[in-house]
């Protein structure tokens, strides 16, 4: 058995793995911070929301509803449905952490985001996860992402009036997602699934409560799985190698 220094090394490797994606998290955090204050929240409320919710897309979806004085349950339901994709992420991560104590699983879940989940799954797929201490590796990924996002969100909240909103900074977040998804679009099932998800998302964008995103994800996964099943069993290329 190797000790704590080994775990610390793996934790640092996780921190390094996300380093190049951090500008995307930074810009996205900054934009969400600015949006909260410009959307009418006072500074303390905005900071509280950023620290406790830590979900940019749900926060941005809730803001116009808060400003319009929508019924509370409508706001929370919109947040819930925006977050439904995390249920899929959680199910995908479960096999990797099933043997960890419940407290650690809860913590890893709390800090899991689109960025950190996709990065983890990409390394899982490429076989570049560390052999041991995967929890520490993922914690390192999540730690850097959380610190970056919160620092930038709080900067955006405090300095909202000084941050230019017409530079389209939030587009950096989209580009960081492109950089994450690009290398994974390497086989026909993934490409078909991605295209189906994109088309359904475009068609379903007016569904209430932002349900379209979740519906699109499910449709894409179904299409990709169908392509998987059409593949002749025993074909050498990227067969389902579940860990």
């Amino acid at each position, binding site marked *: 058995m190797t000790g704590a220094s080994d775990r610390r090394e793996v934790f640092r490797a996780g921190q390094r793995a996300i380093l*190049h994606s951090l*500008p995307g998290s930074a810009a996205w955090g900054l934009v969400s911070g600015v949006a909260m204050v410009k959307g009418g929240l006072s500074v303390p*409320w905005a900071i*509280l*929301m950023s620290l*406790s*919710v830590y979900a940019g897309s*749900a926060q941005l979806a809730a803001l116009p509803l*808060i*400003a*319009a*004085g929508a019924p*509370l349950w409508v*706001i929370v339901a919109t*947040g*819930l449905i925006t*977050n439904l994709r*995390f249920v*899929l*992420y*959680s*199910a*995908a*991560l*479960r*096999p990797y*952490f*099933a043997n960890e104590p419940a407290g650690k*699983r*809860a913590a890893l*879940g709390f800090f899991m985001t*689109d960025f950190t*989940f*996709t990065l983890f*799954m*990409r390394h899982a797929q490429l076989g570049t996860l560390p052999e041991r201490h995967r929890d520490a590796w993922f914690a390192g990924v999540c730690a850097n992402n959380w610190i970056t996002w919160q620092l930038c969100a709080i900067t955006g909240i405090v300095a909202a009036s000084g941050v230019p909103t017409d530079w389209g900074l939030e*587009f950096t977040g*989209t*580009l*960081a*997602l*492109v950089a994450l*998804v*690009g290398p994974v679009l390497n086989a026909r099932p*993934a490409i078909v699934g991605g295209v189906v*998800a*994109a088309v*359904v*998302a*475009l068609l379903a*964008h007016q569904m209430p409560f932002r349900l*379209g*995103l979740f519906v*699109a994800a499910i*449709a894409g*996964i179904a299409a*990709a*799985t169908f392509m998987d099943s059409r593949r002749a069993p025993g074909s050498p290329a990227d067969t*389902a190698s*579940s860990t």
Partner: protein
Amino acid sequence: MSEPVAGIGLAVVIVGLALTTFLTRTSFLLAGSRLRLNHRVEVALRHAPVCTLMAIIVPDVLLHGGVAFDFSPLNPRLIGVVAAVLWLCWSRNILGCLASGMIAYSLARILL
């Protein structure tokens, strides 16, 4: 239009959003070994990252203000994404991808 949500109402909303985020993110993780998903479902979920990200990215690029379709080749976001993807094909460097995408996007917004 009614008054913005504030005070106790806002506190309720923030607690509600924090709870739904926590519960969705930890759902299956906390179920742990008690709950075994069908193996085929677990294999299918390998596609969750690609499909969700595409469902986020593409409307973000092609829906102007989240409402109207913008399939024009002069759409600055489309130009930015194309530049970023071209960079990714050439090099795996993420910083370069972000920079090239932002530069192309900004230039397109200024010039077009």
